[in-house]
């Protein structure tokens, strides 16, 4: 990758980061959401020990919804403010997609680890295979963030964007969640370990594939 691409991607990423740090709206939403979800789950699971499968399912459902909540911040906000034109005039689509995707990746990794960590701590879940746990959370976040960035760009110009974002993102995200649950539950000691490792590998393959097709598809629609 040559330096001009690096400079552009970095500029988009830093722009997002700066805007986020000044408003902190995304950070506040995500952490509030995480705390509320985990507290509610811990409350519901009080005095019962959750099986690894259930725990993994709960973790990923929470992460899924936290991610969906963040879709509007990626492209909708630009379209609503009318700032998309600046990007269309001065940037190349791939650098926009990569910059935004990296930012939403950073966001979803923070959210996912926050959620999963708090869940494990509050519910007292035992992690049998920490590496697999970390890999599954990380791989899942990569998949979610690229799918969410793409969906964000697709609904940004639609009439009823916020509602639509969830409707079109969920079908694309469900397979990811299935695999992620498969991998995470293995790390929490449920199911066969080999299957969980396969799921984690599948997750990584899916992450690579979706990161590869995302920018290309974005380039097709970004000047529509």
């Amino acid at each position, binding site marked *: 990758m040559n330096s*001009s691409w690096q*400079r*552009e991607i*970095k*500029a*988009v990423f830093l*722009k997002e980061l*700066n*805007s986020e740090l*000044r*408003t902190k709206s995304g950070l506040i939403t995500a952490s509030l959401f995480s705390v509320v979800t985990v507290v509610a789950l811990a409350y519901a699971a009080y005095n019962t020990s959750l099986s690894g499968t259930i725990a993994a399912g709960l973790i990923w459902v929470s992460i899924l919804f936290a991610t969906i909540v963040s879709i509007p911040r990626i492209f909708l906000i630009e379209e609503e*403010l*009318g*700032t998309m*034109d*600046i*990007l*269309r*005039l*001065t*940037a*190349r689509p791939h*650098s926009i997609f990569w910059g935004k995707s990296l930012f939403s990746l950073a966001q979803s990794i923070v959210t996912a680890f926050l959620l999963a960590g708090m869940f494990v701590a509050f519910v007292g879940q035992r992690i049998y295979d920490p590496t697999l746990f970390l890999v599954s959370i990380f791989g899942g976040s990569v998949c979610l963030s690229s799918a969410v960035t793409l969906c964000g760009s697709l609904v940004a110009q639609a009439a009823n964007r916020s509602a639509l974002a969830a409707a079109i993102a969920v079908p694309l995200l469900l397979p990811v969640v299935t695999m992620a649950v498969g991998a995470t539950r293995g790390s929490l000691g449920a199911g066969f370990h080999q299957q969980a490792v396969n799921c984690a590998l599948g997750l990584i393959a899916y992450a690579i594939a979706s990161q590869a097709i995302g920018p290309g598809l974005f380039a097709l629609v970004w*000047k*529509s």
Partner: protein
Amino acid sequence: MTHQTVADRFGYTRVVLRVEGLGKRFGDRWLFRELTFEVSQGQSLVVLGPNGSGKSTLLRTLSGLLPPTEGKVHISGDPRLSLGVSSIEMALYPQLTVLEHLEFVASLRDCDPRSDELIARIGLEHARDQVTSKLSTGMKARVKLAMSIQANPKVLILDEPGAALDDKGRELVASIAREQIQRGSLILATNDPSERRLATHELFLAA
């Protein structure tokens, strides 16, 4: 033609923007169709027409912000550098400062930001570190002008540049426009008679 360059005198003009059979359709209506023209260095084209005739749409299509339904727009060079656009529709990032805007756009274009020079040119030295949500509409319009001329574009497209600007601002627009005609070419959509006087060519769009 007013601004004759040496090339013009020898009957040779450098075409910077070429439009072939351009047409744009919204819903089931053609806003314009079969537009074919060339704009060369030293020329300025003023697009005229009543509200709703498609002036802004034409300019957005020329800028590449809208895909044409039909036809082709060709701008010489990398449009990120050779095209500058400023319009009233364009918005700035409310959380970023004036300086950050110029630097951000320069990074995206991969060119020199020229921040100090441009901020002085638009007369916003006192506001360089203010976030744009705190600026007035006229000040925002100046920032947009600065962003549009940052890379010394060959083609400058201005959509109603005088709107929201005070007398000094209009003077700034006029001087930027004249400078642009020396450097390359200018395309302007306006209903303001004083801006209309900048034209070497006119294009009238009927409603």
